[in-house]
């Protein structure tokens, strides 16, 4: 119809045959299982680490700093010798570092939401919590890395847990399970707050005092009444006690049960909340 010479030159897609082949119907297979979808999202998280390995710095450098600082700066003053304090503080620092890392799960989710790809995920017929469970599974790998760095450094500095490798692995596993439960709180925060920075600030405003008001750093025996009662029931104290117990072979089943129950309750409350918010926000 038009002989207008300003029509831009035709630039058909490279290869007609390839295009036709690609467009020929690819039937839809049965939808993936919940686990498969979640693991695929976990793989996505791993790929991001592969492309930007620097993001592992926060889970490796920070714990190293904490271990060195607390052991050598406070060890003598608090426990009489750095060696003795290391036995006490190392499981505590393991707990603290991993729990601090959980805040980043919320920050990462908030960042993700600003991108168009979330719309595509939401328009897929998959198990609804899969993107969230998957990214937390990916984050769990980060928790394991942070924990491993701390334990290896501790061993280098002279930490010799009574319960050996088995006890250490059990302690790390317990901390990671608790962190998984706690992460849901921060993913909820990540969906409620407007910016990644707000999530970071609010997250640390919560996790920082909770961690310090626990038995992570000091034996609560010396604390004033009131504070001591709080520290004793703080789930982070119980987690630290259970981790120490597992590493020393003196763990009490009650502590472990409380930790697992807390993780389960956090997940039961905040996972559905996060999933709902993820589907409805925007």
């Amino acid at each position, binding site marked *: 119809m038009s002989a207008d010479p300003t029509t831009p030159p035709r630039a058909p897609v*490279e290869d007609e045959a390839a295009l036709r082949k690609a467009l020929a119907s690819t039937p839809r297979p049965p939808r*993936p299982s919940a686990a498969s979808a979640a693991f695929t999202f976990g793989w996505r998280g791993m790929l991001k680490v592969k492309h930007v390995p620097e993001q592992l710095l926060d889970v490796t450098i920070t714990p190293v700093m904490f271990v060195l600082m607390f052991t050598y700066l406070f060890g003598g003053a608090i426990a009489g010798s750095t060696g003795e304090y290391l036995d006490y503080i190392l499981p505590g620092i393991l707990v603290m570092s991993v729990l601090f890392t959980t805040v980043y799960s919320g920050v990462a989710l908030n960042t993700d939401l600003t991108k168009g790809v979330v719309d595509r995920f939401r*328009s897929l017929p998959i198990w609804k919590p899969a993107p969230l469970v998957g990214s937390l599974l990916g984050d769990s790998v980060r928790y394991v890395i942070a924990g491993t760095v701390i334990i290896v450094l501790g061993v280098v500095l002279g930490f010799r847990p009574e319960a050996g490798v088995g006890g250490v692995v059990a302690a790390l596993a317990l901390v990671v399970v608790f962190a998984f439960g706690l992460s849901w709180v921060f993913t909820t925060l990540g969906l409620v707050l407007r910016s990644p920075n707000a999530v970071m600030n609010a997250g640390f405003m919560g996790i920082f005092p909770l961690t310090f008001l626990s038995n992570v750093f000091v034996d609560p025996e010396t604390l004033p009444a009131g504070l001591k009662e709080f520290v004793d029931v703080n789930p982070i104290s119980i987690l630290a006690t259970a981790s120490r117990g597992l590493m020393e072979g003196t763990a009490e089943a009650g502590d472990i049960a409380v930790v697992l129950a807390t993780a389960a309750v956090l997940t039961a409350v905040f996972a559905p909340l996060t999933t709902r918010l993820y589907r409805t926000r925007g």
Partner: protein
Amino acid sequence: MPPDDPALAIEATGLVKSFGETRAVDGVDLAVRSGSVYGVLGPNGAGKTTTIRMLATLLRPDAGSARVLGHDIVDDADAVRSVVSLTGQLASVDEDLTGRENLILLGRLLGLKRAHAKQRAAELLDAFGLAEAAGRLVKNYSGGMRRRLDIAASIVVTPQLMFLDEPTTGLDPRSRNQVWDIIRALVAEGTTILLCTQYLDEADQLADGIAVIDHGRVIAEGTPSQLKASVGSGALHVRLLDPAQRPEAERVLSNELGAVHLEPDPAALSSPCPDGDRAAEAVAELARSGVRIANFSLGQPSLDEVFLALTGHPAEEPEANAIEEEQAA
């Protein structure tokens, strides 16, 4: 539940969505036949994206209802999700992954086995001219490459219905043509497409039916020709090699077609013209009388004129296309 009318891929009635005080979508009705390309045309902020997001089950309508391929978008959202795919306005791909990883990710999430997902990714990357860039992070892609990857991600498994939200916004003409070619090929394979666009020529080029939308309402609906006809008949535009021949050309055209309009350009003139046959005769007559023609076109009234006639304000600033240029092709 079976659709009320199986020939309709989308039936929407009275869709409403408000954000705070703003009624972004204010009672939209749509009826889209299966196998067609339906254009939703309107300026920025008209409610196109909100409409598409409701139909793609990303937003729940405040009022009204819609069925997509027979499935209710609220009650049966998961069934809708298993027959549609969405190419959002922000490219719906993960910038922090490579092109190949994006397609494999989607393939796996849609239920393809690992090997099949890889093979399908390779096939699509080849077809869309992305094979070379397959291993690069998407954040380093040009706008056109990103769009092609986006569309590829939407057809990892063949959808029955595809939502395309402004697929060529911000693309240079070459990339735009590539995207148009892909869309035409998709339609040829039988996919129904709901295309949101603010570009009138895009709707004109691709769509079988168009709904013009403004301030959250459909203000006109029809085929591109019907919409144009509602504004008036077309015109033959002629541009001469030699402006000195314009009086002669004017004489010939007024004999052939009646009224002649002299354009501000001293080499150009136009006449109202009902159809191509009459235009061809007029052009032939010009040639016989020795008038040399640089170019001619039979222009129907542009959809811009349609929009102006319907809404009383222009659809967009003419420069909008030119400003947003792709950085690298």
